[in-house]
């Protein structure tokens, strides 16, 4: 894995997660001949055209057929290839959940399933195009690893880390073009090992995906009000980093989970169910997309309505700290 220049990372940040992934996978394919890309009539949308130009024989378009996207990829994986199956997160895993369970999970194959535009970024396109449930689906499939990278650099690191991993992986991509570059310098990335983005003694904000940037801003707001706030980047949703959670439960007095996902079955649920085993653990506040279909509106409208912007997260903390 070669290091990516700061200039390139800034460019990826500007262009968004689709380009960040579409370019990262080219870097991986240059190093590994077993890497192939499968997509469901989404080559252009998923910014896979550069990959197609460089590796025309290593990209397959199965048409608008998400179940077959997974079945076909499973066959490729069964024969030793490393398929990255890509489509819109609204359709994968939901449209092909059973194929992911039986063809990838059950057989423990090295399929990598990538959902672009997860959460509610497709705002005005409406609920058919939101993925508020994808973490919930794949976390319940045994053998699956679930990763939601927080910035362009982490997308790059994820793609490479996943290539070394045994077993199926779901990569969930969030954030709009212009999503901030949060890791400008080289950093250690390990699947299942959360990153303490900043230390803090009072509150711990745990986030997953691109909403980390709001968590960081919330911590800055709280710091100004004298509340020492720790920020944890829980990029891997399964397996959860239990050591990190142990330290949070021991050291912080309030846990705040922040995710662009349903309140059911995502990061907040995962943390809460682990926390349930502790007799004396801190209170938890969950910031999420709740449990409802949404009215339509742009991305900012949704994030604001759900209380997923820094000011709202900070406000929620203030209401809950002693």
């Amino acid at each position: 894995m070669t290091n990516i220049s700061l200039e390139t990372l800034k460019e990826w940040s500007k262009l968004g997660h689709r380009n960040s992934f579409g370019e990262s996978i080219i870097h991986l394919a240059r190093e590994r001949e077993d890497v192939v890309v499968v997509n469901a009539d989404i080559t252009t949308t998923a910014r896979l055209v550069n990959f197609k130009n460089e590796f025309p024989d290593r990209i397959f378009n199965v048409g608008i057929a998400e179940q077959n996207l997974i079945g076909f990829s499973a066959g490729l994986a069964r024969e030793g290839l490393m398929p990255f199956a890509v489509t819109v997160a609204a359709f994968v895993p939901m449209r092909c959940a059973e194929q992911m369970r039986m063809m990838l999970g059950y057989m423990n194959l090295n399929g990598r399933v990538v959902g672009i535009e997860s959460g509610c970024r497709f705002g005005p396109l409406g609920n058919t195009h939101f993925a508020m449930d994808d973490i919930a689906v794949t976390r319940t499939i045994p053998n699956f690893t679930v990763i939601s990278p927080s910035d362009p650099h982490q997308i790059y690191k994820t793609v490479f880390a996943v290539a070394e991993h045994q077993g199926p992986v779901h990569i969930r991509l969030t954030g709009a073009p212009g999503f901030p570059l949060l890791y400008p310098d080289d950093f250690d990335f390990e699947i299942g090992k959360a990153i303490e983005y900043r230390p803090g003694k009072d509150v711990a904000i745990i986030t997953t995906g691109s909403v980390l940037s709001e968590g960081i801003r919330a911590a800055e707001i709280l710091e100004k009000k004298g509340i020492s706030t720790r920020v944890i980047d829980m990029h891997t949703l399964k397996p959860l980093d239990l050591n990190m959670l142990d330290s949070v439960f021991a050291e912080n007095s309030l846990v705040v989970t922040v995710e662009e996902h349903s309140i059911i079955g995502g990061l907040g649920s995962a943390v809460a169910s682990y926390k349930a085993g502790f007799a004396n653990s801190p209170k938890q506040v969950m910031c999420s997309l709740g449990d409802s279909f949404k009215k339509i509106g742009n991305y900012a409208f949704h994030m604001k309505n759900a209380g997923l912007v820094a000011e709202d997260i900070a406000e929620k903390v203030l209401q809950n700290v002693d």
Partner: protein
Amino acid sequence: MEKNLLVEEIKDKTERMRRDAIEMGFSAGSEGAHFGPALSCMDMVATLFFGVMNYDPDNPEMPERDRFVLSKGHACLAYYAALIEAGYIPREMIPQFKGNNSILCGHPSKNVQYGIEVSSGSLGNGFPVACGMAKAAKFKGEAHQVYCIVGDGECNEGIIWEAALNAAKNKLDNLIVLVDINNFQLSGTTSEVMPINLDALWRAAGWEVLHIEDGNNVEEVLQILNEVKESDIEKPHVILTKTVKGKGISYMENNLKFHATSINEEQYRQAIADLDKAEAERKEQ
């Protein structure tokens, strides 16, 4: 309500619908719109609404109304334009397309008051619902028809064929599907992305298959739809309808760039100019 108007009247309405669609798409600003997919099926939607279907905007739940399901839901601009023209949606709502809290969502979201029968936009899923609605009509002994528009790319989805077999088994002769064959899907032409012999497949599934050579010609669409209405073949009917993606806007025709995108001021003006020109030419004839 208006019914079986002359072809010229349907064409008048189709022209206004194209204008309204452009207005809606332009007013969405940088959010853009699926222009090409709506323009290809505009004439068949118009013909259904203003030449074929029975409905009453003042009584949107009227049991005997014909049902319409836009399975290729991303073409909602055509649907909304028809609902505006039919009187379900006030024209004043045009600037709300894709706006915050708007009902004019980027994909149809069920809203019976405004004439939106079924939510769609996740491809493949509208069609089986239309099949269920047709079965329900038979079950309840109701005489109305169910019309459904499916994309040619959408026919890649396995559920289309699961539903097609089931509809044939159930002899849903009250179900009429138009496949909008514009030869493009999202990432290329249909022959590049997924070669498919639609005529053979629909026949093999047990459907009565008809063809429309120019699906952007109201007259031909109306004639075939009337024939189907008269048909006493006890099978569901599918009409394979050749169209042009982006029909009516010079720079959008057969141009995949306008599958889904925003348009700028200049493109907007060009689109209006194209529509003005077409209208003037038609009125001259």
